[in-house]
């Protein structure tokens, strides 16, 4: 028989360990950036988890999708239920894992992939820890999250610092603000089905000179991930649509366009270079952009979303969900918010 004192000691040990684990978890949560009011791009990936998973269209890609496509406009116009799973500088291998993760929640009819990231492979200077964190930090733990971390990590990064954010963010102890406590247990919703509203206007100015590149060819590595995305969609009976969003900079060279055309033709995929459709969309870069031609503002995104929604309904046999109570309410909130 165990003595009472031994049992007491064991209970004390367990209590100490539990307290330690709780404080450790809380510290991890507290020190991790909340991306609630600043750098909100870091919160977007996580917003998806709270959404009803009945989308027929999923957008995947970098800032050119979350800034340019408004699912609420698409719902209003054509009754489409869409969601943008975009994140800052989302690289092609990240798009693959984000899509893979999305498919564990739902199987949409159409996946729209912005191919801007085809120009960046793992050797590119665009691969950075800061962007990795914005995409990955707030993903839910899953097999896909482990894979995306492993594929994305820069030389200095470690998997363990993603598992325990305190290892990366401990130096934030002196930067903590009320936001860190306010959003300790909850997240702030910043997007409308993944669309990040920006109402500012910064007309197109002087863009950098369009320089000739030494090499225009997309790398084998990027094609490899694009193939994976293509196969994943095929396996799940999803129509993959490749797009290049109508951003004026960084330049989408003709050579890039040709390669995507060729790829789409080979794989039997639709590809829309929307840079060439600027006039048809009705974009006016003296008022439809918030940063001089890189991204569209609310007005520009509304025009593009209306235009693209038509393409989607005309070509991909989508359901018209008009009258859906949840989406009607979302739309109402969206309209109210963008007027404020």
């Amino acid at each position: 028989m165990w003595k009472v004192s031994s049992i007491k000691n064991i209970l004390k040990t367990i209590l100490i360990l539990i307290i330690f684990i709780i404080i450790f978890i809380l510290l991890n949560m507290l020190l991790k950036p909340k991306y609630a009011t600043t750098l909100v791009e870091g919160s977007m990936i996580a917003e998806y988890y709270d959404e009803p998973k009945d989308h027929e269209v999923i957008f995947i890609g970098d800032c050119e999708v979350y800034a340019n496509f408004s699912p609420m406009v698409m719902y209003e116009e054509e009754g489409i239920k869409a969601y943008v799973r975009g994140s800052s500088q989302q690289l092609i291998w990240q798009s693959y894992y984000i899509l893979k993760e999305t498919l564990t929640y739902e199987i949409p009819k159409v996946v729209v992939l912005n191919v801007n990231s085809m120009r960046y492979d793992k050797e590119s200077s665009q691969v950075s820890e800061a962007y990795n964190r914005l995409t990955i930090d707030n993903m839910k733990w899953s097999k896909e999250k482990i894979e995306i971390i492993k594929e994305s990590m820069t030389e200095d990064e470690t998997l363990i610092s993603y598992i325990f954010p305190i290892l990366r963010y401990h130096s934030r102890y002196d930067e903590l603000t009320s936001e860190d406590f306010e959003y300790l247990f909850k997240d702030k919703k910043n997007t409308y089905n993944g669309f990040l509203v920006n109402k500012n206007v910064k007309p197109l100015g002087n863009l950098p000179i369009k320089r000739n590149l030494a090499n225009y060819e997309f790398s084998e590595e990027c094609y490899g991930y694009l193939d994976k995305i293509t196969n994943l969609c095929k396996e799940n009976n999803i129509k993959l649509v490749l797009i290049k969003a109508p951003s004026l900079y960084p330049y989408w060279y003709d050579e890039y366009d040709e390669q995507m055309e060729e790829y789409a033709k080979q794989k039997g995929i639709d590809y829309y270079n929307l840079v060439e459709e600027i006039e048809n969309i009705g974009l006016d870069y003296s008022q439809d952009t918030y940063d001089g031609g890189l991204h569209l503002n609310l007005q520009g995104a509304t025009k593009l979303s209306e235009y693209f929604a038509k393409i989607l309904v005309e070509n991909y046999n989508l359901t018209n969900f008009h009258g859906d109570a949840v989406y009607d309410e979302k739309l109402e909130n969206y309209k109210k918010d963008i007027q404020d």
Partner: protein
Amino acid sequence: MNFLLLVLSIIIYASYGLSNFIYIGFSLLSTFIVARYLNKENKNRKLVLAGTIVLNTAILVFVKFLPYTNINILAPLGISYYTLQVISYLVDVYKGKYEYEKNLLNYALFIMYIPHLFIGPISRYEDMKKELLAKRKITLDNILNGGIRILWGLSKKLIIAGRTGIVIETITSNNSSGGYALLAMFLYSIELYSDFSGGIDIVLGISRMLGINLVENFDAPYYSQNIKEFWRRWHISLSSWLRDYIYIPLGGSRCSKLRKSINVIITFAVSGLWHGANYIVWGIIHGIFVIFGDSYKTKFKWLNRLVNFVIVSFLWSFFIWNGTTEALKMMLSVFTNFNIQEVTQNILNLGLTGADWIVLAVSTLILFIYDGNKIKIMEKTKNISKNTKLALICTFALIVLTFGIYGIGFNVNEFIYSRF
């Protein structure tokens, strides 16, 4: 268990480069074999001893001068530590203090026991043999005690040394002098102590977990009232080695005043050389302060400590700046360009935030209070329960994780003293 320890040590040592084995292998085998021929019947034993010591020392000196040559070889890990260990072993066997070691595995473990190869302490064979050959068990109590020691060391290294290192790096890379140089000297005193003693705490903690008690290497050095006392409290294993194997053989203090002074200077010059060819002047100046140590001692304990801290800090200049001339220039600049107002105005531009400075000040204060009351604290806490120890470990771990300086851009594996 010893065999396992040896295998583990060899694997870790090998991970730092297989070529290291040539050096350590030579020292290990040469001294293991030679020790057998140091018995009194051997007429040439003095010559054999001298030859082996000269050979091993020559390798160490060669390595110490490597940075000043065009030879592109990395110094073997731990050479400064194990060379002194093998010399002390040979001399002790020669003097008949103990029998030579017959078991190569035991001897190899004495030399290659990996925790102490990075930053010491410089163990003596009789101490290590007692610990290594004793029937020891890995107990929960040892694990907890070792864990506390490791985390205490990590706190010093990551919370204090990490922060001071940033400021010193900023000052030296900007080539700032005067008040900045003075700040760097004081902070380096704290950094070197926290880094080195923190590292030793980790080594002692790991050893404790394995049931091995290594010798202590520090005894509150900044509580010393003069340089002589400082060297009884700082890097004790090196100081005592120098005393036993350099100072005393030279004649020690049982000779004329002049001879004694020369012995002290030689001993400290060797100490400087052990740190590197660049530090001989530093060693000699320490020697001079040891000789005249009592002459500037007052009856005020705290004043003596303060003066000693200032002297030690100034002399660390040889470690902060590259080259003797640069170090002397910086020391001089404190008097010629005492821009203290500028320093205080720029205090937040030296790499640390206000909160960092507060953390640094509070943690340094805790370290010094602990140092000054170590015996009392040890006495009061010796019977604390296992659960209290566990709670201490958890608390330390959370503090280190939150306030430590580590992560991208910081190399926490590197200890200042592992360079020597």
